[in-house]
């Protein structure tokens, strides 16, 4: 499903605010995959990611009549999802052993480099392969930055991480990815 135009999104939001179930379903279909991908990239728990995604949409639907920023709907939705995720991770952190880093990125970086939770399909080709060769932390900042649609400032607020930290990680990740792709292309040319 492609990106909706601003006009189409405005119509869907207006109809859903009036109780149009089909309009609401369309909004869920449009944005659920991205919300799920972002949440999954952070919590590494598929069931929890689905639960938080569902919770985020339930919050959004109840606040639809109050929302009037059509152009920032996705950002608004992502902020709600990230806040839900942050609250849940804090709750779990309080119940678990204290970690060295308190941010979600820190928790993600300390995990094993398991790629099964990343929403990358085979059609990405070389890009997909290169992504898999990145560290988990690098993959996650790229997914967070590009799939959530949030600015670094908004990500900083959602993740309780300094903007500088996020910028640096993103810069490092994109540089590494590019070098991996270049190396892969050179290797292919060398084989020819």
């Amino acid at each position, binding site marked *: 499903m492609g*990106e909706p135009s601003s006009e189409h999104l405005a119509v869907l939001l207006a109809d859903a605010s009036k109780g149009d179930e089909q309009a*609401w379903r369309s909004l869920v279909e449009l944005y659920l995959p991205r919300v799920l991908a972002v949440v999954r990239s952070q919590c590494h728990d598929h069931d929890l990611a689905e639960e938080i995604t569902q919770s985020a949409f339930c919050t959004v639907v109840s606040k639809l009549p109050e929302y009037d920023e059509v152009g920032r709907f996705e950002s608004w939705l992502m902020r709600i999802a990230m806040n839900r995720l942050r609250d849940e991770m804090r709750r779990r952190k309080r119940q678990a052993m204290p970690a060295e880093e308190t941010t979600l990125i820190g928790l993600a970086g300390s995990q094993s480099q398991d790629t099964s939770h990343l929403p990358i399909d085979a059609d990405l080709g070389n890009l997909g392969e290169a992504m898999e060769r990145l560290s988990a932390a690098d993959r996650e900042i790229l997914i967070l930055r*590009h799939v959530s649609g949030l600015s*670094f400032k908004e990500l900083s607020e959602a993740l309780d991480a300094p903007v500088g930290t996020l910028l640096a990680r993103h810069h490092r990740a994109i540089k590494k990815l*590019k070098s991996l792709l270049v190396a892969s292309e050179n290797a292919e040319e060398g084989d020819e």
Partner: protein
Amino acid sequence: MSDEHTSGYEDNELPEDLKAFDAAVGKALRESVDRTANPELVDRVVAASLQDLPARTLPISRATVSRRWTSPQFRAAAALLFVTGLVLVAWFAMNSQNIEPVKSSPSVVVDFQNELGIASAEEVILVAILDGDGVWIEQELLDQPGATAAEPILRTRGTNVDDLADEINEILGATS
């Protein structure tokens, strides 16, 4: 979304040679994510969130009221029922005036006599008629001047028409 996505970009974070590459990576990742949609999860999320859809919490609209209750036929039947009810109430009210009055208690008759002192002949006759069992009328009443008018009534107490047949025939024979 690409315009809105890059509009939130802090320009000083990436060198120029990486900006285009970063944008291309972002586009590819978003398209990849969109292709991983899970229809079952969509159904679950929609089902869980429908109850909070705004219009579902509003009061029942007029459109949900059955047309049966607003049809002209129903209104006519309701009006007829109302009028019938009014007629019945009025009829019962009118007929309540024709109901035989409950016999006054003896104490009421005695009090009446005591208040007026002297009972008129009509009053004595009335008491005699009402007092079919001879329970109410008292000697004091019979001593009143008007009591003589009640004698025929008192004499016929306990008798019926058959018993008076001879007297009636005598009267009729005398007048014919």
